[in-house]
């Protein structure tokens, strides 16, 4: 258990981290979490974003033109 906790990357020999190492580890975890969320947002939101920007550009197309095939 203690060895698994100590393998969290940059732990000191006695199993605790210094303040600098803890903030570095937290920054890494937060940025990984943010990148994962950003990827999900981009995956689901990019095409709706393009459609939104396109439907609001001039001259405004009608909604029925978006859904029909003519």
């Amino acid at each position: 258990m203690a060895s698994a906790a100590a393998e969290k990357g940059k732990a000191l020999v006695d199993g605790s981290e210094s303040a600098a190492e803890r903030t570095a580890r937290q920054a890494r975890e937060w940025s990984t979490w943010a990148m994962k969320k950003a990827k999900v947002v981009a995956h689901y939101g990019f095409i709706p974003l393009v459609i939104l920007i396109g439907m609001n550009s001039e001259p405004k197309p009608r909604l029925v033109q978006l859904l029909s095939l003519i």
Partner: protein
Amino acid sequence: MGSAASHSAGPPPPPPPPAYAAPPPPAFDAAAPPKPQEEAGKPAAEEKVDYMNLPCPVPYEEVQREAFMSLKAEVFEGMRLDYTKMLNQSFGLTHSVSMGAVEIPAQGSDVIKIPHGTYDFGANFLDPKLVLIGRLSQDGRVNARVKCDLTENLALKINAQMTSEPGYSQGMFNFDYKGKDYRSQFQVGNNEFFGANYIQSVTKHLSLGTEAFWVGQQRKSGVGLVARYDTKNFVATGQIATTGMVALSYVQKVSDKVSLASDFMYNQMSRDVTATFGYDYMLRQCRLRGKLDTNGVVSALLEERLAPGVTLLLSAEVDHWKKDYKFGYGVGIGE
């Protein structure tokens, strides 16, 4: 494309009309504004090259663009149907259906093909300052390209492929700066990929460039050099990189309608040498591109405009070495 890092740059753009670098207007003195039409007839002896007024070079990844237009035509197998609908001048939707086969690498020289049908939905927004292109395929993969002009000289390009499976998504951010006679680019990608490149016009026809990249996770890095010499009649490029790749290409514009291209590629890591010869006929109603390879591959692609808005595509690729024959036909509707 022209980059030694060989990160795929997303779906290749639709074939544009040939864009050879037009000869830049000779600058007799820096104060006179360039008049390309009037000065095109002046004899070459009167031209004085003004090294302070060289044209801006082509972007680094497009250094071999004329060769790729002829030699890397998108041959396909099976049936293809593309429908493009423009809702207004800058916004359009595309629907593509393709029924073809996908190859699985197999032991020996046999080729195993698995039938594969796809449907792709695309949304394009094209503005002078902002271009957004998104493609969604039926297995949930999203391919996104963004090009945004932040200022007159600085552009941001984003290219991303996102999948539902974790770990298979890729993204790349490019910052391009265009100077008076140079271009520079800085790239950041996933897997801790960093790259930078720079290309400069040295004379009216010659431009030289260099690039460097570093991949964090695999601890790989590389440096590359590129040279491009283009005139009204031909374009010659050479590229060499520390990844062990040497690529040379030569494209000759025989006439307005015909151009011939040749390409030589040597990869030291995989001991792969390939030479390709190709032709490109740009006629009024059709465009025919074909190539012949030292790997024993002969291929051709015909795009014919049957009526305004209707395009017929015929594609063939015959690999004599592996006895692999791929034929495809398709129809494109819309602009």
